[in-house]
């Protein structure tokens, strides 16, 4: 029993469980399929946000190019779906039937060679993860080996995002250009646009997201997580202790790229198209704000942050389109200035201490009745409260230390 409780505490399973309940039970019961599909779309961004918690919150390296990996995963999946949607019968109006419509518009007369493997689903599924990971490895290996980090890493990833956007838009015969890949209909003959399919895809998305969170949590609580935090705070000391700092960072960065790729693939499946507007600088930075609002140290918080910001975006752009940008701006500034730990930080700083206090007060009441037991309990609860209740608005270092101790 205590072993189980330890396990739950160690992996913060309680919060993951609450999230699972919310996503898998509460939302499907309360929302209609249209809104649920929207939530499913937001959840695909949450993969990126969860990845950012790992690489930014824990790794201390901010990447402003996560949209690249999201886009690559999404494009890989979209290529498969597009090929399936472009069978010779539905495209018989084209001059070259059987190739995707945008190729025909760009005077291509045969399927380019690199498109061929995407006729196979297993290859596509591997590519969804492998392509972003490979690119992430190339970028991060070059940078981290030369100890490039901090703000400089951020702007280089941004440059990569920009360049990839230009590439995709420029090579419209191969990628669909600005239009992206539209009109994705079926996967192995299964119509992904029906309500039933949307429910299934939604649950697949939730399951994979929860799985990713658990995986990340597992890494965080292991030795790698401890080292990541240590590297973030005192990189040189870790290096002097004999660890290869770069390799750990490269690993984390590749992991987040893979997660983002999965998110992108699920996006293509659920929304039915992919466009270069997910690859550029703006979406990449927006994804950072999802993680920041939720709390850059909290995996679960990142999901809540993503849902909240996107729901806000949809709501405000429906009701007050002019206010939306101001609100978004306020979010950016507010989160960085006042709540650097986001929603999770608020929870940690205000709700948890308050609860701990309540509990210890209740225990004190009991203590009046049984003095000996009370002393034991109070001494047990006090250090915990002290560890969790410190300071005003948690600076990264402080909260990181707490997390480090816990691990």
């Amino acid at each position, binding site marked *: 029993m205590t072993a189980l409780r330890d396990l739950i505490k160690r992996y913060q399973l309680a919060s993951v469980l609450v999230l699972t309940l919310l996503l898998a039970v509460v939302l499907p019961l309360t929302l209609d399929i249209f809104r649920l599909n929207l939530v499913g779309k937001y959840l695909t961004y949450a993969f990126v946000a969860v990845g950012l918690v790992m690489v930014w919150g824990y790794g201390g390296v901010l990447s402003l190019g996560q949209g690249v990996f999201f886009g690559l995963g999404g494009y890989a999946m979209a290529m498969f779906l597009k090929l399936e949607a472009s069978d010779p019968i539905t495209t018989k109006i084209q001059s070259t039937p059987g190739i995707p419509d945008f190729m025909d518009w760009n005077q291509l007369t045969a399927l380019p060679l690199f498109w061929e493997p995407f006729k196979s689903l297993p290859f596509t599924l591997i590519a969804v993860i492998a392509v972003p990971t490979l690119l992430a490895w190339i970028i991060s290996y070059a940078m981290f080996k030369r100890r490039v980090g901090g703000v400089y890493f*951020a702007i280089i990833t941004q440059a990569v995002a920009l*360049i990839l956007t230009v590439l995709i838009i420029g090579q419209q015969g191969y990628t669909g250009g600005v239009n992206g890949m539209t009109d994705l209909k079926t996967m192995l003959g299964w119509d992904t646009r029906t309500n039933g399919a949307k429910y299934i895809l939604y649950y697949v998305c939730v399951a994979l997201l929860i799985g990713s969170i658990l995986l990340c949590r597992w890494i965080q609580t292991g030795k790698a997580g401890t080292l990541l935090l240590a590297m973030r705070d005192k990189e040189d000391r870790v290096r002097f202790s004999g660890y290869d700092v770069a390799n750990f960072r490269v690993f984390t960065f590749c992991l987040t790229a893979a997660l983002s790729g999965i998110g992108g693939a699920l996006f293509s499946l659920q929304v039915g198209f992919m466009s270069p507007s997910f690859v550029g600088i703006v979406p990449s930075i927006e994804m950072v704000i999802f993680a920041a609002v939720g709390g850059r140290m909290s995996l679960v918080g990142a999901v809540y942050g993503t849902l909240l910001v996107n729901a806000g975006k949809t709501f405000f752009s429906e009701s007050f389109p002019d206010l939306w940008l*101001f609100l978004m701006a306020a979010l950016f500034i507010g989160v960085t200035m006042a709540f650097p730990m986001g929603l999770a930080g608020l929870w940690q700083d205000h709700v948890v201490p308050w609860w701990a206090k309540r509990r210890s007060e209740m225990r004190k009441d009991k203590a009046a009745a049984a003095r000996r037991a009370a002393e034991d309990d109070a001494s047990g609860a006090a250090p915990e409260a002290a560890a969790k209740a410190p300071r005003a608005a948690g600076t990264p270092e402080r909260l990181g230390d707490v997390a480090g101790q816990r691990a």
Partner: protein
Amino acid sequence: MNFSDLLNIGLMQGFAGLSLFAVLLLMGLGLAIIFGQMGVINMAHGEFMAIGAYTIYLGSQLTEQYAPSLMPVYFPLAVILAFCFAFAGGWLIEWSLIRHLYKRPLDTLLATWGISLAMQQCFRTFIGPKEVSPTLPDWLLGSWAPVSGLDIPRNGMFVLALTAVVTCGVLLALSKSRWGLRVRATVSNRVMANATGIDTRKTDRLTFAIGCGIAGVAGAAFTTIGSTGPTSGQLYIVDSFLVVTFGGAASLLGTVVSAFGIAQTQSLAEFFMPGSMAKMLTLTLIVVILMMRPQGLFASKVRR
């Protein structure tokens, strides 16, 4: 098509590369100063350029309406005004936001991005969603044709001259003025600079404001080439970032060299191949070089 025609085209092509160089340099300069000195990446850089551009636009509108006789001379005055407005904006933002975030450079990135969003919406609400371009004085329009067949764009010459003035001004100020002395002291050792009585906070604020002011001038110069809309800033910032990243963000010389390299590559490539291909070739070259030298062409010797 005889030899003198080809010579003319060659000359004009050389000038096209030079004027692109001037534009890129002017765009990247403000960003590089702020990053080199303070380690802060100003994501609202493009919007400060838009402030400059809008200043010119408003200036041209007001002059046209109230003092049409001043049309030939309003432009230089408006450029100075553009610097002042952007300078004031930068000062305000440093005071209200940036100074609280020096310990967290990554967060300045997010905060300034937020500012850029707010500024975009301000432009849209108060000036309008349409792209505008100012009425330029006649001496900025058309071309200067010393011989027939040779057309040197006047706006290009103007931007080139302006860039030369601003760049030399900045380099001189950094090496000769008291501000430059303080800046250099702060960059090499902040704590020590503080100890010798330099007010590093004030230095930072001044530097940030000057960087923004230069962005304003860049935006002003840009009105002679393109148009300005609420989201133009996002377009500007992309090029600015490439120049600064490629040059090695901490070095002004790097910015100059990288602007020159990118401009010449792109301009030449554009002459010999289609525009889209040229852009791609330039970008691919930048990526390959960045992969080999991720710290940029001219990295500072100080290890961070």
